[in-house]
Each structure stands twice: as structure tokens, then as C-alpha cells.
């Protein structure tokens, strides 16, 4: 403690060690709680306005029997939360959505991890900066344009088929299928995974990898025993950043999935834009949120261990 060795004659009584740090000329004292509140207020005010208020509004809507617009009186009801029981096909859609989220996250994790590893281990300086900018490029393009450009590639006699026709016959087009949706989503969310893994991998000391090699570890062992465990925080935060928006996505499923592109995201969007049933849309959203939170709660042990490493 610095105040133990300090020869400064403090006016404070012994035991108020914290105050000594301010020195003998400390200004008028503001109580700790007041300072904390004042400093946090802008952030909380913004959060309230931008997040809590809209969420709370939607939460209230989810208990109403119809969209509260116009003159008709509204009533309180819990029936929208029974949607998964009343309309059984929603369970299938929810399952498909989770499977889609799983595959997208898994593919992003594998590609993103190795892309980040290649960036960290095989590039330096200018070259690395350029590659990082190229990776971020999808963020700079409009999402809609990005997804529609995939339809140009994937449709029958599209770009992919033209390439295929150089070597074979027929069509390998897979537009309007689940793989097409996953492809579009992977393209959109891969940069998050690359960046989070990159940040985790760049902090690993080269000497740690060299130490493992000197002890007899080949590349496979270095990868599974050293790199992946040490990059786990990056992989996990990348997975969260990918999985959550993916299972709520509606643009990619709708444009690239066509008829098979029914996901919870599109169903919810329909409730707001087509069916004008905001309460059902809201209740489905909150059910989805609950599912996501439940999944994270289940894996929270793993998350904590990852964050601590």
C-alpha cells in the first residue's frame, strides 16, 4: 500500500486509506455513490431509450390480444405464448432455425479460426492490414445487395453453373435450399468470427508455441492442446455474435431459401409486416430470446472457463 510508506501528514484519521491517495489538496468531496451515478447516467439513459423502452413496449404488446392501433379496445391475454402448442408447425420451424444457426456457427467457427490463424502466423505488417480490410469488406456492402448477389451466383445458369459447365453437364445450382441460406449467412457473419479469433490468437506468445514444439508436439497437437484452448474466449464470443443474429435473421432465409426458407425470423417478420399481428410477433421474439438465454445458461460453465483462460 502506498499510504503505509507515505510520510505525508494527512489530515484524515487513520483507516481512511483511500482518501490519502487524493493528496492533501483534495477538492470538495463528492460522495462516491453520487460520482458513480453521475458518470453512469448517460450510458444508462441511452440504454433505457434505445434498448429497454422498445423491449418493454414489445413485452407489453406480447400480452395483448391485438395490435393496439385504431379505436378497438384491447384485452390482456397469454394466448400468444401458447403459439408453439396451438400451432405445432412452429416447433418444426424453430428446430430448423436452430439447426441453421448451429451449422452457420460451426462453419464460421472452423473457417474463421483457420483464417485468423493464417493471418496471425503467416502475415505481417502491410500485408496483414490489407487482408484485415478485405475481410471487413462484407460489412461495408449493403446486406441486401450482398444476399442478392448470391442469387446471381447460385441460380440455375448462374455464375456457379457457368463455371461448372466448363467441366461437366447439368446444373449444380442450389439456390432455394437450406445450404444456400447457410452459405449466405456464413458470408455475412464470418468477419465477426475472424476478428474475435484474431484478437484471441494474436495475444498468444510465439514462445509458447515454440515451447510446445520443443517438447515434442507436432502441429496437430499444438493446434488442439495449445491454440484452440487459448483461443477459446475468441471462439466463444464469435459463436455468440454469430448464433444470436443468425437465428433471428429473415433476409437471407427469405431470399436464398425461397419456399424452404421458413425460419422463426421470417415468421416473426411476417407477423409485423404481413399479418399485422404484432402481439404474436412480439411473443415469438421473446420466446426466441428465452431459448437463446437458456442455451447460453446451459453453456455458461464453458463460457466462464473460456473467459478465465
Amino acid at each position, binding site marked *: 500500500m502506498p499510504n503505509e510508506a507515505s510520510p505525508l501528514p494527512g489530515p484524515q484519521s487513520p483507516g481512511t486509506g483511500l482518501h490519502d491517495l487524493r493528496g492533501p489538496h483534495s477538492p470538495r468531496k463528492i460522495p462516491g455513490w453520487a460520482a458513480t451515478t453521475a458518470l453512469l447516467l448517460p450510458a444508462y439513459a441511452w440504454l433505457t431509450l434505445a434498448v429497454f423502452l422498445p423491449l418493454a413496449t414489445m413485452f407489453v404488446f406480447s400480452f395483448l390480444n391485438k395490435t393496439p392501433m385504431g379505436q378497438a379496445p384491447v384485452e390482456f391475454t397469454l394466448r400468444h405464448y401458447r403459439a408453439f402448442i396451438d400451432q405445432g408447425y412452429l416447433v418444426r420451424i424453430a428446430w430448423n432455425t436452430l439447426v441453421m444457426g448451429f451449422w452457420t456457427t460451426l462453419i464460421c467457427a472452423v473457417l474463421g479460426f483457420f483464417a485468423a490463424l493464417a493471418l496471425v502466423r503467416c502475415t505481417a505488417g502491410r500485408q496483414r492490414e490489407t487482408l484485415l480490410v478485405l475481410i471487413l469488406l462484407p460489412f461495408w456492402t449493403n446486406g441486401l445487395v450482398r444476399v442478392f448477389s448470391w442469387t446471381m451466383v447460385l441460380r440455375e445458369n448462374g455464375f456457379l453453373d457457368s463455371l461448372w459447365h466448363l467441366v461437366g453437364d447439368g446444373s449444380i445450382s442450389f439456390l432455394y435450399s437450406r445450404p444456400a441460406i447457410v452459405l449466405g449467412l456464413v458470408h455475412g457473419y464470418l468477419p465477426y468470427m475472424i476478428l474475435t479469433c484474431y484478437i484471441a490468437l494474436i495475444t498468444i506468445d510465439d*514462445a509458447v508455441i515454440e515451447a510446445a514444439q520443443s517438447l515434442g508436439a507436432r502441429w496437430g497437437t499444438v493446434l488442439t492442446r495449445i491454440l484452440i484452448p487459448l483461443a477459446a474466449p475468441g471462439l466463444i464470443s464469435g459463436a455468440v455474435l454469430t448464433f444470436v443474429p443468425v437465428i433471428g435473421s429473415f433476409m437471407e432465409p427469405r431470399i436464398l431459401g425461397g419456399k424452404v426458407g421458413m425460419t422463426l425470423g421470417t415468421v416473426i417478420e411476417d407477423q409485423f409486416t404481413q399479418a399485422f399481428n404484432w402481439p404474436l410477433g412480439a411473443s415469438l421474439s421473446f420466446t426466441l430470446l428465452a431459448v437463446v438465454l437458456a442455451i447460453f445458461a446451459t453453456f455458461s460453465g464453458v463460457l466462464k472457463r473460456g473467459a478465465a483462460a
Partner: protein
Amino acid sequence: MTEVHIRSIAKSFGPVPVLHDITTQFAPGSFTSLLGPSGSGKTTLLRIVAGFVTPDRGAVTIGTRDVTAVPVWGRNIGMMFQSYALFPHMSVARNIAFGLERRGIRGAEARALVDQALEMVRLTGFGARSPKELSGGQQQRVALARALVIKPSVLLLDEPLSALDRRLRQDMQVELLRIQRETGLTTIFVTHDQEEALTLSDRIAILDRGRIVQSGKPAEIYERPQTRFAAEFLGDSNFLTGTVEQGGVRLADGTLVQSAHPLPAPGAKATLAIRPEKLQVSTTAPNRLTARIVTVIYAGPVLSYLLETLDGTRLKLFQANRDGTILAQGATITLGWSPEHAIPVAE
């Protein structure tokens, strides 16, 4: 005990040559320091022995096996790094067991070896801790245990003590030397700290710009440096330059300095190196120079004086603080030394 041979090793990084045609050997059980300033190539040489760097030319032999084409993981080396390089996500015991697992040693046998290694570095009972909970010195001892437990053919140390504070470094030097003697491991130690090199090694190799300029026993290199660089890098030195004549070196001011060592042919230029602690205030010694004291540095047991002769040559004088008398700044004194201590060195 294993011998390490290095034959005609050369390495360039891009257009920059780092090592020129190095040939040397490390005797079984010896402790050799590679000493040199940064950029001298000492670390590159160590990394070539370890296998992290592939030489452009030449061969490395560990024992009887040519390992030039063998990757790092196949060389059976023990290595210590300046940054400790412990695996942060594993306990101390698992760090030490890592190399054993790679050799298929697991379970009770591995645990016994880990305990033995911990005992050797005096960290018994620390196995369950995480590296984060250890001090720098303790972490480095874990790193040493991890390197030794696999019974490597050769122990490679890449400035392992540089990150420790002075006191701890001295303790670790003693520890390292004890363990090296106990295990009899051929050890190659990279350092830029000359004191550390003198204390620890059986043999020192001084590197300068990619070449070994001199190698030998510490005392041999210190007492008989062959080049100006070696004399300057290992310890301090005074240099006197002149022309060889009458079995001595004639300085610019006309003084003839005697040397007991073989000099170049008469008429040639020669440089003599004289260690600052071998000079003394004397009017009777065979070699004498008059100089003025410019600066007095009091460092407790040792007094250092910076002096200047009439023609501007700068000299250093180290004196043991035997009776507490300090020579005055500005005083003019006569320095004397024995011809035995005037060592001719190549420029």
C-alpha cells in the same frame, strides 16, 4: 551426455546475412555461453540448433545424429525462453507433464517424474497451481523442470534469466549451474550479459556480426582477448595504439610500451589492450603513462576513474576500495602496469 556439432552453418534473412560459415562444437556435458550484442546472430545460432530456423548451408549434429532436416519436435531438446513460455491454461503439473505425454508417458509414471522434476527445482507441492499464481523466478523454475523432465539430449537457454531482477537472477544462476552439473546436460546458453556468461560457463563463444570471433574458457578469453571487440565486449579495456619497434609499441607521444606477448612485425601498427583493474598508481612499473583524472565514480567496493592523457587518449582505472582513500578529480597521476598485462589485439 551428448555432443553437439555445428558445421559450416550460414543463414541469411532475405538479403541480410546473419551467420557466416560457423563451425564449432559443444562438448558433452559442457556449459557454453553464446555471448554477443543484439544482432550478432547468437539467438539465430541457438534457434538453428533447436530447429526453429533452417540454415541455408551447413549441418547440425546432436550426438551421432544429423538433425539438420529433423523438425523441432523430433530433436529431443529442452528449451527455456526469456518469456518463460509456460502454457497459461494448464496447471504447473500439466505443464511439466506435457512433454512426457508426447512421449507416451502417462498416469502414475508421469506423476512420479513430474514430482521428481518439481523437487529438483525446489517447487515440491506447487503442482496444482496455475502459472499465473507464481512469481517470475518460480515460473522460470517450472520452465526448467518442464525442459528437464523429458531427459533432453541438449539444453538450450535463450536468455532465460534476463526478465528476472538482479537478486533473483543470481539465485537462479546458482540453481541453474547446480542442476546442470547434476544432470550433466550439454547446455548452450544465449546471453548478452557478460557477467552471467563468465559466472556460468565452461566455455564462452563471442559472436560479432555473424561470426564467432573467439571462443575458449572464460578466464582465457578475459585474460587473453584476441580482438578489440572481444576485449571490449567481455569486460572493460583500455586501448593504446602505436607502431611496433624495439620489442614494444611506440605510442604517438613517444612512450614505448612493453608487452610480454608476441607482437606483430616491427613497423606494423599494433593495439594493446590493458584491463582497467590491472593499472595501478605507480612510478616504478616498467610501463608508465601520465594522465589526469576527469571523473571519479564511487561504487562502494570498487572505485572507477575516467582519465585522460596529455594527447587526449581516454583511460579507465578500477581500484579496489581498500582503505577508503579516493583520488581527487583533476589530479594528475602516473599509471603503471606490467608488460604481462599489455595484450596485443587485432582491430
